[in-house]
C-alpha cells in the first residue's frame, strides 16, 4: 500500500517535471534559454520514472533490475554532449564575438581562435605516449 503511494508520487513528480520542461520549450524566448528546459526533463523527469520503475520491480515483482541505473548513467553521459553541440551551433549562427564575455585567458573562445599546440602543462604520461608514437 505505502509502496503504491510512493511509486505513484515518483511517477507524478516525473510527469510534472516532464511537462514543465516541455512547456518551457514553448514559453522561453531564445535558443539558449530553451536549452535549459530539456535538461530538466532528462534529470528529474526521467529520474522520477526510473525510480518508480525500480521500486515497482523490487516490491511488486520481487526482482531487482539495474537497467534503470544504466539508463540514467547513459543519459548523464549523452545529454551534456548534445546540449554542448546545440549551444555551439547557436553561437556559430546567432552570436557575435562581441556579445560573449572575455575568456580571461590568453586565448579566445574555441570557435573563433585556433587552439595553441597543446594544453598548458599536459600530464607527464601523456607527453610520453605522444613521443612514443
Amino acid at each position, binding site marked *: 500500500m505505502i509502496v503504491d503511494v510512493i511509486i505513484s508520487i515518483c511517477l507524478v513528480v516525473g510527469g*510534472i*517535471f516532464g511537462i*514543465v520542461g516541455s*512547456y*518551457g520549450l514553448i*514559453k*522561453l*524566448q*531564445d535558443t*539558449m*534559454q530553451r*536549452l*535549459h*528546459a530539456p*535538461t*530538466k526533463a*532528462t*534529470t*528529474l523527469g526521467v529520474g522520477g520514472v526510473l525510480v518508480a520503475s525500480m521500486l515497482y520491480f523490487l516490491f511488486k515483482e520481487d526482482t531487482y*533490475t*539495474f*537497467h534503470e*541505473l*544504466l539508463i540514467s*548513467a547513459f543519459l*548523464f*553521459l549523452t*545529454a*551534456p554532449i548534445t*546540449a*554542448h553541440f546545440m*549551444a*555551439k551551433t547557436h*553561437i556559430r549562427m546567432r552570436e557575435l564575438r562581441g*556579445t*560573449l*564575455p*572575455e*575568456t*580571461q*585567458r*590568453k*586565448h*579566445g*573562445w*574555441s*570557435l*573563433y*581562435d*585556433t*587552439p595553441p599546440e597543446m*594544453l*598548458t*602543462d*599536459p*600530464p607527464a*604520461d*601523456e607527453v610520453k*605516449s*605522444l613521443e612514443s608514437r
Partner: protein
Amino acid sequence: MLKKLIPHPLLSLTLTVVWLMLVNKFSLGNLLLGGVLGLLIPVLTAPYWPGRPNVRGPFKMVEYVLIVIWDIIVANVEVALLILFKPNRDLKSAWVTVPLDLRSPEAITVLAGTITMTPGTVSAMLSSCGTSILVHCLHTDDPEAVRDEIKNRYERRLKEIFQ
C-alpha cells in the same frame, strides 16, 4: 607486463559492471563473460586512450555524486518555478566566464557535464586553450556568484579527485 595486459583497470571494472547490469542477472557465467569483455576491450582500444586519468579518493567521488544529485533536485524546482511563474521580460539570462584551475581533460569534461546537468546553467564552449569555460545562465541577478559557486562547489572537489 601487467600494464600491457590491463591498461585501464578502472575501465575494465566499469565495463564488467556495465555488462552485468545489462544482462541484469548475476551468475558466474555472466561474470566471466563480462570479465573477458572488460579485459579485451581496453586492450583493443588502448591506442585511443592516450593518458590514464589520475583518480583517487573513492569517498570523495561518492560525496561529489551525492552533492550533484542533491543540486539537480534543488535546481530543478528552482527552474520549474522560473518557467511557470516568471514573465519572460523579467528573465535575466547571462553568459558567465568561468576560468578553470583544472587541467586534466577528464576533470574538465566532468565539470562541463555537471554544469549542464544541473538545470539553470549550460556549459556552452571552452576557450581554445581549454582553460576557461563559457556558461549560459537562465536567470541570475549576480553572474559572479554563479561563477564562484561553480568554482567552490564543483571545481574544488573535482580538483581533489583528479589531481
